[in-house]
């Protein structure tokens, strides 16, 4: 199966390499590059990872967040299911967030509140809010599904992170979002998101995210080990370190139900 995937995406690359001669529009090229980035990331099956966030105020004070996540990809339904469980700070310890992400549809989300053993459905609109007081919004934390945006290719340039040549795209959200648009840099060598600039609803540059320390897992899936989000308005920043990636854990959809969240 995986071999077929690689073969297909390889063929796609070959075909697309010939693409520009058909005078592809900037929109079509943008969509194609975003899809290729999707394809490069699809087929991971499942993975678990630990996250640590370090929040820095403009004055230099720091605060930490620790959590672990498990993610399952359901290819038939093009659905992703994620459970994020907090370890720290103490007052939100064992609080867990279950998200079902659908391609081209609004997400479903539930919050588990351990003090009362309650699983509460929450609206998808919470996506634009800050993730536990950090510079990341909830929507910045979810997987980059290309179908959730409209893309336009802006040009090719050196990646801001120094990872060689990048495609530069502008993407506008198709669903409710805290942003009017984002500018993304995707590297040409492996279609990895390198840098994302977030523009607020008034069109002002709000934040810049840099993804670095990419490592390859199960032979083909790239994952960053460090994500740094800088807020240009408040001068605050959040560093998100990912560690302990494990793929192919044999996770089952039944571990991503409302009932399983409270266990």
């Amino acid at each position, binding site marked *: 199966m995986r071999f077929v995937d690689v073969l297909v995406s390889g063929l796609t690359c070959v075909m697309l390499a010939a693409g520009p001669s058909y005078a592809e529009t900037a929109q079509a090229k943008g969509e194609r590059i975003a899809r290729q980035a999707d394809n490069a990331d699809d087929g991971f099956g499942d993975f678990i990872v630990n996250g640590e966030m370090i929040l820095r*105020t403009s004055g230099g004070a720091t605060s930490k967040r620790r959590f672990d996540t498990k993610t399952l990809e359901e290819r038939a339904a093009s659905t992703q299911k994620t459970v994020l469980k907090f370890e720290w*700070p103490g007052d939100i*310890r064992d609080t867990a967030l279950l998200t079902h992400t659908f391609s081209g549809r609004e997400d479903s989300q539930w919050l588990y509140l351990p003090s*009362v053993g309650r699983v509460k459905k929450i609206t*998808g609109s919470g996506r634009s809010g800050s993730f536990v007081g950090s510079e990341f919004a909830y929507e910045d934390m979810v997987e980059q599904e290309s179908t959730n945006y409209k893309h336009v290719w802006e040009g090719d340039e050196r990646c801001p992170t120094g990872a060689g040549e990048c495609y530069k795209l502008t993407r506008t959200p198709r669903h409710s979002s805290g942003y009017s648009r984002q500018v993304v840099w995707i590297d040409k060598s492996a279609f990895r998101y390198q840098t994302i600039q977030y523009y607020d609803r008034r069109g002002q540059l709000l934040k810049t995210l840099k993804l670095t320390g990419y490592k390859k897992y199960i032979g083909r899936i790239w994952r960053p080990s460090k994500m740094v989000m800088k807020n240009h308005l408040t001068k605050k920043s959040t560093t998100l370190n990912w560690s302990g990636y494990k793929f192919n854990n044999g996770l089952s959809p039944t571990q991503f139900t409302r009932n*399983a969240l409270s266990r």
Partner: protein
Amino acid sequence: MWGHEIAKLGGTMSTKTKTSVRSAIFGAFVAALAAPVAAQGIEFKGELSFAARHFPHDGAQPGQATSGTSLITEGRLVASSDLGFGQVEIELYGRGDNRTGSEVIDIQKAYFQTGNDFVSVLVGSDVVFWGVAESVNPTNIINQNDLFSRIEEERKLGQPMVNLNFETGVMGTVSLYGLIGFREPDFGDASTRPRFAVLPDDSRAMFDDVNNHDFDIAIRNTNTISFSSASLDYAVSYFQGTNRNPVVLPGCANRAAPVTEATCTAVNTDIRNTYESLAAGGPGALAAQVAAGATPATQAFLLGGTSVGTVPYYQDIQQVGLELAYASGDWLWKFEGIRRYASGEDFFGGVFGAEYRFNNVFGGSGDLTIAGEYAYDDRSSLQPITVFDDDVFASVRYDFNNPYGTAITLSGLRDVNTDGSVYNLEVSSRLTDSTTVNFTATHINSSSPTDPLTVLNNDDFYELKFSYFF
């Protein structure tokens, strides 16, 4: 959720907790299961809080603490271990109040759990939450209530059980519960604040199901249906067993000489028979209906006044519940309702409401969530008292979305008929990554003699609480 507490305050005024012998045995059983593998690594975590709660008014009930400030100490300790073939979790909770003497020590959780992708089994004590609403959760019936806690909290006592969960895929999750041992609430002491107007004698508790009141069963099916731009959660549930809230009946209580045990038993047996023969919709208060229907000997006893008091009566009930939560865009719509079959009648209790969230309001990064609910209940006077018979609830919450997790919540509940009302303000914030501070102010305003909330009219309070997590 805090409203639920008020409902129970009106109904039972339970405060202290007795850890039943059965649940202690159950806990010991689970602990014994865990012991051989203790060496495999046990994770400990917990929290400790200190609160100062100030009552500006004297208690309205005889013997209740006067105005003044209580110091409340609260603690929680959790030990968990992954055994490889399953998990063990033990959670102890305790709380004490220096002025009222009220205290709670409870095994909230003490269970062993194992399973595979399709079925899981839990054996031991656990706390299970059912419901979707914010003001009151009529479907939430697995655990007994612990009500000494702050009003907006919904604290429960651990319930010993055997729980099976089946993940069916397209039909969602089916959960079966065998609830072993009935945990009576403790009605507190005369000094307890807040408490019910009467203190039922729980040593004379009576059960509808005489022979089998401490084994109950429950089943619940939960599932989610997704639409293109919305999703619906539903849950249907069924409970058969002993009602968690008692009916409070007049009778022989706190017996003292010259009343003999035989007289006391005869009176309460007659009271019980009289209550069970009553039909819903009778005139006057329940106590008057029972007294009017009792034998002349019992009537004479009640008029005599010696050893006359109140006793709790626990009905055998069947209850069907439905929960719906529909999320679309920034809206969340909720319905939660029950049909309960108890003591010669069946009645409906339910709550309907909506929640709307404004993101990044006031030009900042904060979120504003507003919620409104309406609760209705058509039970007769034969049933345990509820505050939520015809009530409107509203709340506004502002989350600052800052690194301290600061939030302000203002909520209110108002009875449509009696104008009895409760207002609650809570401000909470993290101080460091391991400490938090909470301020709560609760104002109760109820003067109608028909509103159970009136009992709490003097129980306004302000509370400042510091918590440490380790």
